[in-house]
Each structure stands twice: as structure tokens, then as C-alpha cells.
């Protein structure tokens, strides 16, 4: 919402010298994200809600791309839009029975949700407006036209995940001048997270399999008794 306001002001400010496409697309994606988020809340059908959520998250990914944070944008698409929502729809479609597919919210709940949501929005607005004036463009913004941006890439992040920091500062001792690498990457946290996920996977597989084994055992019992009889 705040982003929308700033987008409008910068768009209007820039109309004298041609349309500011950055602001235009920011405005577009921000409006899409907000509008579809509202649609998620207002929709009755669960699958439709999921659909609006996908579009809203996709528009958010568009905002990330617009800001030059391509890695985060692609992550957003991959994890939220791609992975989580496929699973969400899976869950909805497998579990939703006829009375639960359409959710009619009682008026009392709507009022309650309005109060909670409005309160959160007020807190966020207050926080956003009291922060430093990030709406003003940086001094070197004029040089950063499309196509000539000094593009930060995801490579240092990837290298840091395998334990090599290429972005460290030599002067402050983060990076040794000899080989240019530092010892402190993110290898250990990365490995811990990987092992944790592996444990989760193994645990899930174990839980799923024990249930089936029991069922198979019961079936076998029945079949053997049937054979005896």
C-alpha cells in the first residue's frame, strides 16, 4: 500500500520526461499483489483462494525482479509459487469435502478479522513512515539506467554457501590478501540445514511406511485365517 503511494508520486513526478517505466511496473505489480491478496481473503472457494494466492505471490516475485533481486525473485517463484502451492492445492483437493470447499465467513468473524488486519496494517504503516526516507532516489540513480546496471549476481552467495567468501573486505581482515578467500563461509549452517531436512525426509518416509506395513500385516492375517478356514 505504501509502495503504491510512493509509486504514484514518483510516476507523476516523472511524467514530464516520458513515462518512468520502473515506477509504472512497480505500481502495476504492487497493485496486483495487494488486490489479489484481498481477493484471497474475500474468495469463498478454497481452490480459488489458492489460485489468487499464486498470482499474488507471483506479482511479489515480479517486484523482486524489478528491484534487481533476481535470486530472491526466482526463489519466491520456486518455493512459494511452485512448491508450496502445488502442495497446498494437493492438500485442499485431497481433503476438501463438499461442505468445506466453499467457506462462508460469518459477519462476526469478518468484523474481527477486519479489526486485527487493520491494526496490523496501522502498525506497518507507522513503521514504514517513521523509517529513513527511502523513497528518495540514491544520488547515482541517474547512472543506473536499464542495461548498464552494475549487476550484483548470486555467485558470491553460492560460493559463500560452499565455504568461500569472495565478497569479504581485505582491509578489515575478512579476506586474506594472499589467496583472496576467507575461511568463514556459510558451509556449516548450510550443512546443518541439509542434514536437518534429510532427517525430516527420512522421518516422514518412516512414518508413512510403518502405517502401510501395519495394514499389510493385518491384510496378511486376514488372508491366512481365511485360508485356514
Amino acid at each position: 500500500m505504501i509502495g503504491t503511494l510512493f509509486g504514484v508520486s514518483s510516476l507523476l513526478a516523472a511524467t514530464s520526461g516520458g513515462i518512468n517505466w520502473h515506477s509504472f511496473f512497480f505500481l502495476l505489480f504492487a497493485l496486483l499483489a495487494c488486490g489479489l491478496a484481498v481477493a484471497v481473503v474475500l474468495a469463498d472457494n478454497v481452490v480459488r483462494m489458492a489460485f489468487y494466492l499464486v498470482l499474488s505471490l507471483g506479482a511479489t516475485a515480479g517486484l523482486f525482479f524489478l528491484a534487481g533481486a533476481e535470486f530472491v525473485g526466482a526463489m519466491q517463484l520456486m518455493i512459494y509459487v511452485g512448491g508450496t502451492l502445488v502442495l497446498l492445492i494437493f492438500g485442499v483437493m485431497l481433503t476438501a469435502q463438499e461442505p468445506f470447499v466453499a467457506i462462508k465467513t460469518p459477519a462476526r468473524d469478518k468484523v474481527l478479522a477486519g479489526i486485527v488486519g487493520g491494526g496490523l496494517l496501522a502498525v506497518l504503516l507507522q513503521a514504514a513512515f517513521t523509517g529513513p526516507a527511502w523513497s528518495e532516489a540514491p544520488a547515482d540513480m541517474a547512472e543506473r539506467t536499464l542495461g548498464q546496471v552494475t549487476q550484483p549476481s548470486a555467485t558470491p552467495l553460492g560460493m559463500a554457501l560452499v565455504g568461500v567468501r569472495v565478497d569479504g573486505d581485505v582491509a578489515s581482515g575478512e579476506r586474506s590478501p594472499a589467496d583472496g578467500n576467507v575461511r568463514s563461509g556459510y558451509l556449516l549452517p548450510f550443512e546443518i540445514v541439509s542434514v536437518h531436512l534429510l532427517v525430516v525426509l527420512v522421518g516422514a518416509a518412516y512414518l508413512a511406511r510403518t502405517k502401510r506395513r501395519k495394514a499389510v500385516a493385518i491384510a496378511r492375517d486376514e488372508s491366512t485365517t481365511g485360508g485356514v478356514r
Partner: protein
Amino acid sequence: MAEYLIQTVGLPEWLAWSLMAGLSAVLILNLMAGGALVFIWAERKVSARIQDRLGPTRTGGSFGWLQSLADGIKLLAKEDLMPAGADGMLFRVAPYVSFCASFAAFIGLPFAFDMVGLRLNVGVFYVVAVLGLEVFGVILAGYASASKWSLFGAMREAAQVVSYEVPLGMCIVVPVMLAGTMDLVTIGEKQAGWFTNWYVFHDPFTFVIFWVYVTCAVASVNRAPFDLAEAESELVAGFHTEYSGLRWSFFFMAEYSSMFLVSGLAAVLFLGGWNGPIPVASLLGLSDGTGDTTGVLVRLVGLGNLLGKATLGVLIMMWIRWTLPRLRIDQVMTTCLKYCTPIAAVMFAGAMTWLWVFPGGVLDIDTGSRRPGEIREGWLDGPGGRGAAAVSTPSSVPNNAAVAEVAE
């Protein structure tokens, strides 16, 4: 291309840029629509030849060239049906979701050096992420059709695509690791030179993992033998049972362009991208990195290379489709989880070890590529560093990684 228009033709900058932007969009859209027409015709001919038939022979001459066009006109004229119990909005919107996902993925795919809709430094990741969205349209179609066949098809599709993303991702990581970047343009550029520089021939592990990639790519775009979502012998037509007319054809355009996309991705990641098997251009002393007319011509040859490789990939997919029988759903899962994933994991570890043992390649040929650990990026050296110069004027670093820069 925009630089070429500005420098050689003398167009004003804004016109050149917007012209190129419009041109890329139109080109990609036409590549999808026109490509689908050609590929559907090719599919009919290929399938006919494999089954010892003739295929289309009458429409538009003895080869039936215009068969797809005639089909297109027929589809346009068909009634747009919707089942009574369907969720109208989702039913209508689902084909466009599939199509848009396919289309959006093409934005990140380079067709020649610097001939890419949008050069992203996480290009591979972006393409894979967006391509994964195609399944969403299929699931929506299956759900919204209010038909059991459709729902079963959608369920199978979802299970299959979610599973196959795991080995597919592992296969894609290997070329990324070899190149030290996720930028598809740089990955393609690092395989310049003779065909021995292609990543598929980099070491035995990449050769094996290329075939795992082929398997997973076929599965991820729902082609036979993995086309369980539409298995016509069991599910009528699977997720698109209830669709007719133009909406149905949108699914087909999405399917064929996804096939083309994964083939193009395979070409860029493993098969040297737009570099031909023999570096004719560089033997003649030409470079595609320059902004003048020769550079553009060399790039156009590169474009032909990539389109040729991708078309070959699509034809191979057709060959597979008409040769192998369809797998059962449990066999599909077994192929993914018990074969593809472990093989991909082992090959990934092997390729990593190979890179560690032979950091400069086995024969120590100077391929112009660098070890990942040696890569320094221009933007790290401060604003307006060498990376910035390289991006804006590719001519300054011909045949080199434009983004990746060596420190000192």
C-alpha cells in the same frame, strides 16, 4: 542487437531499445505459436513414419504441410464448451496459466550470445522455477473441469512433476557448477570452441548426467512414456478431457513450447548452446561479441545452431514417444526415485570430484574457462567496475565471461 541498431543504423536510443523489446516479445510468441504448428505437423509425420504409415499427405501438397494450419482453423471454429458443474473462472483461466508459464520461461533462455529476452544472472534458476508453474495450470484445469478423468490426470501430473523436479535440479546444478555461474549466457559462452568443450563431453559423469537430464526433462514436460496426465487409454484425455477449441489448443501450444524450452535448456547447459561443433567463426577470426554487422551475422548463425539443437531435441522426444510404451504411475515413481535421483546424486558427486582432481581439464586445454573459486565479479570492485563495462559493451570482452571477472 540494440547497440547494433544505435551504432550502425543510427536509431535513437529509446526507439532502438523499445523496438528490440517488442521484437523479442513478438519473436518468442511466434516461436511458440509457429513452433507448435511445425512440431505438430512433424509429430504426425514422425509418428507415421515410425509406424510405417504416411501421415498427412493431402492438405497443402504431398507432404501435408498445411495440416496444422487447417487444424488450427478447425479449432478456432469449434464451440467453446464448459461442463455444467465446472468452476467457470478457473476453467477458463487454466490454459492461459500454462501458456503464460511457458512463455515467461522463454524470456530467460538465450538464443545466441547476448540474444536473450532478459539476461538474468540466475537464468537457469529462473527458467526452472517458471517452467514448474506450468503444472499449476494443469492442476487447475483438472480440478475446475468437475470430471473424474480430469482430476485423476491432474493428480498424476502433480505427483510426477513434483517428484521429477528433484533429479532435474540435480542435473542442472552440474553445468552450473562447471561454469561457476547461473547466468545462461555465460554458461553457453564458456563452452565456445570445439565440441570437446561442451559440458556433455567434459567428463564421464556429465555425459551420464546428460541422459538423466533427458529422462527428467521428458517427464517434466509430460511427454510419453511419462504422459500419465493424459493417458488416453485409461483417462480419456486426462486433464484436458473437458476442453475443446482454442482453450485446448493453448494447452498444446504450452506443451510443445515446453518441449522446445527444455531442449533449448539442454542445448545451452550441455551441448554448447549457440556454439557449433566446429568453431568456424573463430577460425575465420570473427567474433560474436562485437556490435557491428559481422558480429550480428555470427550471432544469427549461433541462433541457427541453438534452434537446430533444440529442434533435434524435440524430434528425439517424438522418437521416444512413438517407440516406448507408457509407464504405469508406480513405474514412473520408481524411475524417478530409485533410478534418476540416486544416479544424478552419484554423478553430481563424481563431477565435483573430477573438477577437484583435474581443475584445468584432463588434457589441460586452455578453454578460456575458469575455476569457480577464481571468479571475481566486477560489481564487487565498486560501482562502475569492470563488470558494468562488460555488460554494457560486450565488444570489450569477446569470447569471455562478461559478468565474471578475474581479480587482479
